[in-house]
């Protein structure tokens, strides 16, 4: 074959693969080609680098233009323009690339701040976070509410935690993993140190986290890369070393080293009550996996039972429980009194796991992903609610749709996350030119909420002249109705927005990046109690 033709055909196959327009037959040809020809593989690598370069250039270019337009920034934002410009580029570029490393990673990213004057994100100096650890797992957790209730997967700043009952696992950013059985009290000090007042603790310290330090009223334990248990509940507190070596520092006596299989009583410094390590006393840390699975299964069963009651609510018009079979392209409406409302149609999206094993969810990722739902009728009051897991907010995008009516007609309902992380419920009040009455909550989605399942609900009530926002079943904010426009959601999209079904022009991107595993719409403004139950 003519090499020129060869390379032309290769390039055609490469672009079709990259753009997702490749046919199965072409794909087979491409795979065969890449298997057979080392030269084709080299070309394919170079092609992918070319694509990466073009994408990166386009993103930089878009930012440059945005910056060019952005001449109204107040002086304070422009101070130190050089460094903040780089910071902004890095921040936006990372977000634009959709990389949310989560956990600790955002800690070192520059913090975005809202310039309320023109609704633009402006760069500031690099942010610091005080987080030192995360709550990675837990079963039957009951925290002392007066001290604070950390969320699962949430970063934890230094400070006090008081666990009344249950088993919690904390991963320190330095690498140590600490299992805690309630009742227990612990104060996080840094990414590699904590102070334990009382409770039972089991630590796993991998080699890079060597030096992890647990302080207690009876002395300090410095870990040299081990597994050890600490029981402070007994009148005679004990330290057990299951593997490796720890240093025990107690006041007024010499430091002692304990090694695999040994233990020590801590009640009197230097008392030298030596023990044989007893792993059975710390079994809570070993069966955590099984208990986490069992408790998640229980939560799932409970959810299924509650659903039967919920679905019978006469005002429930739509309930999408996302429990449709694998590969399903529509979502059935489980509301018993919503028989006149058709199923939701899935466009794009990936099926994935929801809040628990067995709970299914849809992942929204690209600008095309969406679920189309019909919500016929007019509603002088309504409640809209969903379980969502937001993965990121795109810095170049003003809004991310949770559920938005198609178009901009009077009565259209636009429920969305705005770029600041606040929730907005908008009701289109005037069509030409279009005016939307927006109700905006305080900020909900800060980076520490990315990746967590969050229950969101909004109620709208013309008679009560009020809009309310709820997060995880708790009232977040109340807003007086601006105008008594009667909402008519009509055709709506979960996770996206279309200006009109036959619209072919360019329009702003509104896609949601994250997962959803439950959506409901009631023809009634639910009470605060009802919303709390819904979020259980």
């Amino acid at each position, binding site marked *: 074959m003519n090499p020129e033709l060869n390379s032309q055909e290769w390039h055609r196959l490469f672009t079709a693969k990259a753009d997702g327009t490749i046919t199965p037959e072409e794909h087979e040809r491409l795979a065969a080609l890449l298997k057979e020809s080392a030269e084709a*593989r080299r070309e394919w690598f170079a092609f992918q680098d070319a694509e990466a370069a073009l994408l990166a250039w386009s993103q930089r270019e*878009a930012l440059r233009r945005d910056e060019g337009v952005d001449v109204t920034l107040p002086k304070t934002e422009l101070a130190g323009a050089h460094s903040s410009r780089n910071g902004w580029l890095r921040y936006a570029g990372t977000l634009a690339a959709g990389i949310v490393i989560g956990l600790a990673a955002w800690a070192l990213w520059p913090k975005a701040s809202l310039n309320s004057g023109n609704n633009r994100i402006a760069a500031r100096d690099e942010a610091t976070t005080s987080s030192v650890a995360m709550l990675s797992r837990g079963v039957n957790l009951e925290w002392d509410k007066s001290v604070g209730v950390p969320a699962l997967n949430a970063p934890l700043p230094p400070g006090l935690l008081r666990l009344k009952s249950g088993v919690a696992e904390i991963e320190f950013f330095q690498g140590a993993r600490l299992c805690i059985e309630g009742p227990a009290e612990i104060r996080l000090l840094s990414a590699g140190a904590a102070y334990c007042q009382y409770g039972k603790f089991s630590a796993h310290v991998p080699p890079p986290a*060597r030096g992890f330090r647990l302080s207690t009223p009876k002395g*300090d334990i410095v870990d040299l890369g081990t597994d050890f248990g600490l029981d402070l509940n007994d009148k005679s507190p004990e330290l057990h070393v299951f593997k490796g070596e720890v240093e025990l520092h107690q006041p007024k006596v010499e430091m002692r080293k304990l090694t695999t299989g040994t233990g020590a009583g801590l009640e009197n410094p230097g008392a030298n009550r030596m023990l044989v390590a007893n792993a059975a006393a710390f079994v809570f840390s070993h069966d955590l996996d099984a208990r986490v699975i069992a408790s998640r299964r229980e939560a799932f069963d409970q959810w299924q039972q509650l659903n039967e009651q919920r679905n019978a609510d006469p005002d429930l018009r739509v309930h999408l429980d996302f429990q449709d079979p694998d590969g399903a392209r529509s979502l059935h409406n489980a509301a018993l009194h919503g028989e006149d409302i058709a199923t939701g149609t899935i466009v794009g999206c990936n099926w994935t796991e929801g809040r628990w094993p067995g709970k299914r969810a849809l992942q929204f990722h690209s600008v095309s992903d969406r679920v189309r739902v019909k919500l016929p009728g007019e509603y002088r009051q309504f409640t809209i609610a969903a379980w969502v897991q937001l993965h990121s907010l795109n810095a170049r995008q003003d809004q991310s749709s949770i559920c938005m009516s198609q178009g901009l007609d009077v009565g259209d309902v636009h429920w969305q996350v705005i770029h600041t992380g606040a929730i907005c419920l908008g009701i289109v009040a005037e069509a030409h030119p279009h005016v939307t009455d927006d109700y905006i909550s305080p900020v909900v989605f800060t980076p520490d909420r990315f990746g967590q399942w969050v229950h969101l609900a909004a109620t709208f009530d013309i008679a009560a002249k009020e809009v309310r926002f709820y997060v995880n079943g708790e009232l977040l904010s109340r807003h007086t109705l601006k105008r008594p426009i009667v909402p008519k959601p009509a055709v709506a999209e979960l996770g996206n927005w279309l200006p009109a079904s036959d619209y072919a022009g360019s329009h702003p991107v509104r896609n949601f990046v994250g997962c959803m595993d439950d959506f409901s719409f009631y023809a009634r403004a639910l009470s605060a109690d009802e919303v709390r139950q819904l979020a259980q």
Partner: protein
Amino acid sequence: MAENAPDSPSSEQFITLLNAAHGRLLGFLRVMLGNSADAEDVLQRASMTIWRKFGEFDPSKDFFTWASSFAFYEAKNFQRVSARSRLHFDDELLQRLAEERVPDLDQREARLAAMDRCIEELDDSGRELVREFYLNKTEVAALAERQGRAPQTLYNKLNALRRLLADCMKRKTTQEAGS
């Protein structure tokens, strides 16, 4: 009470290493998955694993080599569960691509730099088309309508530009390698 945290690998080091390896990890995943959206998606998932396993990382070793093995498995896993498309490379090919891509990545920076110069050589309308396409991939149709052209015509033009740019990049990198 404890004093400061002892110095040992920390989240800060993790982020520094991941940031530094980010582009190469994406480049590594792209050749297996074929497009940037999937590569980013998989890297995001792999980053969680890499973070969790970071305690096992030996700082005297190369971070990219270590991290890329997690990325590789995440890519395989992604293909298995991804409902979006059935058109994936099989495991044998993935393995092959992964092995050869690692040494090939040494050329990546040179290619990126060359491409930046090639783009500057395009005329304004070409650059505009490239920019519009890579920022909003799904909207070639909308773009075509705005310019009053058939979508296929525009797509063909775009692909001709991509080919031109790829050739230019290749020329510039081989020139540099030769000089």
